[in-house]
């Protein structure tokens, strides 16, 4: 029976016992270069800001703010929650899809997540109903840069690593996106100069380019760029 009382609980739990995919830890790592000490469930949407040097090391280097919006919830949430989430998907600049490497279903849900975020403009009521079918054409003319990040790499046993990484490579190809696999509790995966850090930099640069330079508009230094991290497995970049 439908209850008027929403079933959201906000308990802080130790990482050892109960965790989700790890978006909040990832956002914290990206924005503050530190490991999140006490992850708890994300209710609604939480934001963090990263200061990014566009075209670092070149004469055209410029500093931008990147807003990372981490939208909580699951892809199977009630439609009222989905309608509320839809307000966060306005004019997205880029999308980061986050999935759990130890849980195959979370990567399968990524398709539904990306549909929810991308199709938002096509559905006037704001409530999106999908049957989970994946249509490659919808991604063919997608202008929004995508990045796929797999978390909890340390929990994959050495022997299975190859199989898991092959699967995620196919997944990233489906989305026509780069992929990064890491462990959010260890900052060394994103250490300066590592291939992951380079991929991340390139992705943020691409987003900034799409937002500012392709429109041939004025480049306002230090202007902010919004990115959204959506629901259980979706993060997106968003600019207003």
């Amino acid at each position, binding site marked *: *029976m*439908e*209850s*008027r*009382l*929403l*079933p*959201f*609980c*906000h308990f802080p739990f130790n990482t*050892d*016992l*109960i*965790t*989700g995919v790890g978006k909040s830890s990832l956002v914290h790592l990206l*924005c*503050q270069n530190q490991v999140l000490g006490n992850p708890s469930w994300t*209710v*609604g*949407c*939480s*934001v*963090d*800001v*990263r*200061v990014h040097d566009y075209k670092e090391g070149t004469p055209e280097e410029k500093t931008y*703010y990147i*807003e990372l*919006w981490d939208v909580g919830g*699951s*892809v*199977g949430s*009630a*439609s*009222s*929650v989905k*309608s*509320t989430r839809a*307000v966060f998907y306005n004019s997205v600049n880029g999308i980061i899809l986050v999935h*759990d490497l*130890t*849980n*195959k*279903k*979370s990567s399968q*849900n990524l398709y539904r997540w990306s549909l929810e975020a991308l199709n938002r403009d096509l559905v006037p009521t704001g409530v999106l109903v999908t049957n989970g079918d994946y249509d490659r054409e919808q991604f063919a003319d997608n202008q929004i840069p995508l990045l796929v990040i797999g978390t909890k790499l340390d929990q994959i046993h050495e022997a299975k690593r190859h199989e898991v990484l092959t699967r995620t490579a196919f997944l990233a190809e489906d989305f026509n996106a780069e992929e990064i696999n890491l462990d959010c509790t260890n900052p060394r995966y994103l250490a300066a100069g590592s291939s992951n850090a380079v991929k991340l930099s390139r992705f943020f640069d691409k987003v900034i380019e799409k937002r500012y330079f392709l429109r041939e508009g004025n480049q306002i230094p230090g202007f*902010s760029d*919004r990115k959204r991290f959506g629901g259980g497995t979706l993060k997106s970049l968003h600019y207003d």
Partner: protein
Amino acid sequence: MSFLIDSSIMITSQILFFGFGWLFFMRQLFKDYEVRQYVVQVIFSVTFAFSCTMFELIIFEILKVLNSSSRYFHWKMNLCVILLILVFMVPFYIGYFIVSNIRLLHRQRLLFSCLLWLTFMYFFWKLGDPFPILSPKHGILSIEQLISRVGVIGVTLMALLSGFGAVNCPYTYMSYFLRNVTDADILALERRLLQTMDMIISKKKRMAMTRRTMFQKGEVHNKPSGFWGMIKSVTTSAPGSENLTLIQQEVDALEELSRQLFLETADLYATKERIEYSKTFKGKYFNFLGYFFSIYCVWKIFMVKFWSQHISFILVGIIIVTSIRGLLITLTKFFYAISSSKSSNVIVLLLAQIMGMYFVSSVLLIRMSMPLEYRTIITEVLGELQFNFYHRWFDVIFLVSALSSILFLYLAHKQAPEKHMAP
């Protein structure tokens, strides 16, 4: 000969129930998770299968299908198996999976799970003491002892859920209670939410810039660690880090506000959907049912014993089916709300335990709803339990639960419109 035919019918139906439980587990409960331990799925399906078989036997009893002696045999066997599962297997596996999640105890999993199980058995046994449920002439591990305790837990659960359901069902379905929600309300709330997010973002930008300049200047904003660190932070505190803590506090307050606004917006959307649903044909039908059931529930709260003797087989069947369906739906919602990839095994097993106990006590209580002539088999199989105690206990908990739900919903209903009127 007839015994063989009867047994084969029973076994076929049990396999069917097992399959249904398996499918429900895969398609509904675990559709977002990967099943890595198949033993969990097997246990859940087996519990479900044997619980449904008990109800099937009741129906067979009423319809007088199958031979009466084979019915009796299957009752006993079913009961033994279910008690074995509920008292030995499921608690042990719950302990095992809890211990597996804790990294410290991973090595000696078996030992610790046995310890947990022994603790559970101790409390389970102690449960029988304050209740006058059994005459002392039965042995320690007899069916009656186990059933009586399982019955107490299950009956309490049932009464709590029924009490809450009896109050919540009319409240949800009757349009009288639905507040009027317009699109303008929702838009206004969304605008507030986005404004709050913007404020959070601007503060975080300041923090990020401050941290960056501090980092570049060489003052690292570390939390004071160790003895000397604390002394140093008392005497010299960089102005940058002081600012940061202040802004962080403001951000925390704003984030709490944004969470509240998000929940309120989702609540408004849910109410709006319910209003739209109530305008459809299905909605009107359920609205009418809601009125009907609310009258029935109110009547049940006040006149429990009067017509019980005369409820026919059809109503018994309806009660069984709706309680199974209602329980599965409630369990699913509960599961979605609180589980995650690490705890999913433990939670599913807990749900299987609750489901088993719930069904066993349904059998105890359904005896009250059955016409006299069909009660004998249950009395025979379950032995000398004090059935009257269970009925009285159910009534008491039902009343308590219903009254507290009324109070709770009244407070929640009163609070809500004021929250939205305030600018």
